[in-house]
């Protein structure tokens, strides 16, 4: 497969060189026959798009140029081309804007920070963002299954799992995965279309209003692969659901691959037609749960590498510990670090990172210490008052240490303040407790789980 495509690209390549050479030679000769002003105005940014069966297709930058050149210079161009290449018999013109310049622009450092627009160029014909590919998709235990299902679909589109239904909370990588499927299938020549359910609804409404419902149907039925993001937004939209139902049947009957994503399991979608729900479940339903801590670390490292940012292991550990769940938040934190380290021109230390993250991405909430105590006490089912007491009973000591750890790590309360708030303890006691929990957390998965549950409670 790959060798065939290599050959075909190499043929294409030599042809391109030939037509480029041909046009360059032609330009040299044309330049001599007309005035400099004319040449500059009308022949700048022209190139040969194709040379087929003696017809030269010339790309010109605008309609003005097309009309003018075909009107005034047709015979000159044809004569010149014929002298250089006996195959040339006729010339046609198309308006093509070349955006090659884009790649030559280097990212220059400006005083003003720039909006990250580069990442959001999407292909108009299929709505896919070329940035989302399998290579940049970090696979961990949490999304192994989803990744495997997606890859199976790529290998056997329309046959393996149809539809593929991926669900998970926001920021867990659904969109990345389903777009990667699209980008991969596009490479093997499938006609892919990515649409959010919202866009689909608007399109459908417009077509109804316009009286072009048929062309709407045709538009969607022409694709080999349809990827619909966030189908949960179709809840309550009966007409659109019906349209999707028909579209689904038409595509499914023709073995065309359909991929859905949603933030809930199809069975939990209320106000969604039963027949549509059952069809969602017909193929394969996979869940992308919250990434585990190792995966968060791996994602951070991969994202950092993409941005040519080096992160020390401490920093990765800290970030993956403090920012949970949402990958988008991880990205946000990483961007902040990237921004800051570019500014300083060096790698940031752990302390600097902590400070940055504290200010920018952690959802800082001013929680009263007593709140934390109450919630943790309730979690362990003990009296909140016992936390403040000088008791060293085991069932109280652990919650107390956890409280100290959480107050310190999540809310950045100072050691002396924690000690004082929790019944007048010395700050060294607090430091000891925090360090102890930090050590244990690495070995004790149960403890880690407990802490993440407590953090959920505190949100």
């Amino acid at each position, binding site marked *: 497969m790959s060798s065939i495509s290599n050959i075909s690209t190499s043929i294409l390549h030599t042809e391109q060189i030939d037509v480029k050479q041909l046009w360059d030679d032609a330009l040299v000769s044309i330049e001599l026959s007309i005035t400099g002003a004319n040449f500059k105005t009308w022949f700048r940014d022209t190139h040969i798009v194709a040379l087929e069966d003696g017809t030269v297709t010339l790309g010109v930058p605008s309609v003005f140029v097309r*009309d003018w050149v075909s009107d005034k210079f047709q015979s000159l161009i044809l004569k010149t081309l014929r002298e250089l290449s006996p195959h040339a018999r006729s010339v046609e013109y198309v308006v093509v804007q070349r955006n090659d310049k884009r790649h030559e622009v280097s990212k220059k450092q400006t005083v003003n920070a720039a909006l990250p*627009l580069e990442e*959001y*160029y999407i292909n108009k014909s299929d709505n896919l963002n070329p940035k989302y590919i399998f290579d940049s998709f970090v696979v961990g235990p949490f999304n192994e299954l989803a990744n495997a299902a997606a890859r199976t679909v790529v290998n056997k589109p329309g046959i393996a799992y149809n539809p593929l239904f991926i669900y998970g909370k926001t920021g867990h990588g659904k969109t990345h995965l389903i777009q990667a499927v699209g980008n991969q299938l596009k490479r093997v020549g499938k006609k892919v279309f990515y649409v959010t359910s919202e866009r689909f609804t608007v399109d459908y409404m417009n077509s109804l209003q316009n009286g072009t419902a048929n062309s709407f149907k045709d538009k969607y039925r022409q694709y080999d692969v349809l990827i619909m993001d966030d189908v949960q937004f179709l809840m309550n939209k009966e007409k659109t659901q019906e349209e999707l139902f028909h579209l689904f049947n038409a595509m499914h009957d023709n073995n065309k691959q359909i991929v859905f994503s949603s933030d809930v399991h199809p069975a939990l979608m209320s106000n969604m037609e039963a027949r549509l729900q059952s069809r969602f479940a017909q193929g394969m339903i996979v869940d992308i749960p919250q990434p585990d801590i190792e995966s968060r670390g791996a994602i951070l490292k991969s994202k950092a590498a993409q941005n040519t940012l080096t992160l020390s292991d401490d920093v990765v550990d800290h970030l993956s510990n403090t920012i949970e769940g949402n990958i988008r938040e991880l990205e946000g934190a990483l961007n902040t670090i990237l921004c800051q380290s570019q500014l300083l021109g060096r790698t940031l230390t752990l302390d600097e990172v902590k400070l940055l993250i504290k200010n920018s991405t952690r959802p800082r909430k001013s929680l009263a210490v007593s709140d934390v105590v109450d919630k943790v006490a309730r979690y362990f089912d003990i009296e909140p008052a016992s936390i403040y007491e000088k008791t060293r009973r085991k069932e109280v000591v652990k919650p107390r240490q956890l409280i100290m750890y959480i107050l310190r790590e999540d809310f950045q309360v100072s050691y002396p303040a924690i000690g004082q708030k929790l019944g007048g303890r010395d700050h060294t006691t607090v430091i000891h407790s925090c360090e102890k929990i930090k050590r244990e957390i690495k070995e004790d998965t149960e403890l880690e789980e407990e802490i993440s549950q407590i953090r959920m409670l505190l949100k």
Partner: protein
Amino acid sequence: MHITTNTKDLQHLLEIISKISTKHITLPILQCVLLEVKNNILIIKATNLEIGIEGKLSVTQEEEGVIAVPAQILLQTINLITQQTITLTSEGDVLHVESQTSKTEIKSIPVDDFPNIPQVTGEAAHITGKVFALGIKTTANTASQSSIKPELGSIYIHQKKEHSLTFVATDSFRLMEKTIPQKNFILNDSILIPYKNALELARVVEDEDDVELYINENQCALVTKQIYITSRLISGTFPDYEQIIPKEYKTTITLLTKDLAHALKKTNIFLNKFMQLTVTISGGTFTLSAQSGEAGATTEAIAANVDGDDVTLNFNQRYVAEVVPHIYDESILIKCAGVGRPMVIQNVHDTSLRYLVMPMNK
């Protein structure tokens, strides 16, 4: 060619059209307007190869014909003619401009050199010229001045919601989004118009109510009762800008628009060469300050309703100040998403406008 017409009408039309013809050193024909007479109608054309424009005027025709003369020379001449009617006659390569008391001869340029003005055909969509022009004028300044990325040097027009049109422009440091109402209008595909061209389109339709809009793959055209104007379109894609608008904010500030405008006038005096404006939100107060090595420093606290975290951000003052004239509400809403993230400025009530501005790197 030989025609007689009303001077004021001709002058008015010529004023609109001659703005398009430019001083072009290599192609002198582009400085010209083309006068074409047929069936008692005078058609005046001009183009700069980016935009093509045509205007119609009823005239009394003695003889039909075509001639091209430098736009500015013709316009200046006609501006100085005080009589009500005017006669234009071509003779050889000269255009005679005559009124009761004056006689002028203007040298013409061969008409064969005049480029075609692309005709965009198809189904007309009806738009309200005034609001369409408002959409363009609100966003045009925010488009990129550089030609490296043609899509950022353009205004992106798309339909986000029914019965409306959304105009967006960004130079990657800030982004302006303006939504205008357009009843019963459906735009199937988004378009990108180079911002300079868009401003010319806006100028032509800004006083019009009903305007026809034509779009094809490479060109768009607006047609009023008198004028046909066409611009090329950019074929690139515009970034999916919704993605960069922060979803959550850490700080929101509400203040009077006139207070902000006032404070900006003061900080404007003390800007350094980076035009650095410091915005400080601390303990519920909102302060603008500027400092320059040569002039000194100033600080202005503005009465504001502040909600959320403290933050200090630096901006290019020009970027912040540019949005103020487009805010029609009495109060302005500013939302910060934290350090290194864009700040959003909008009206408190009117949601048709959103402006994003990135802070400075330090």
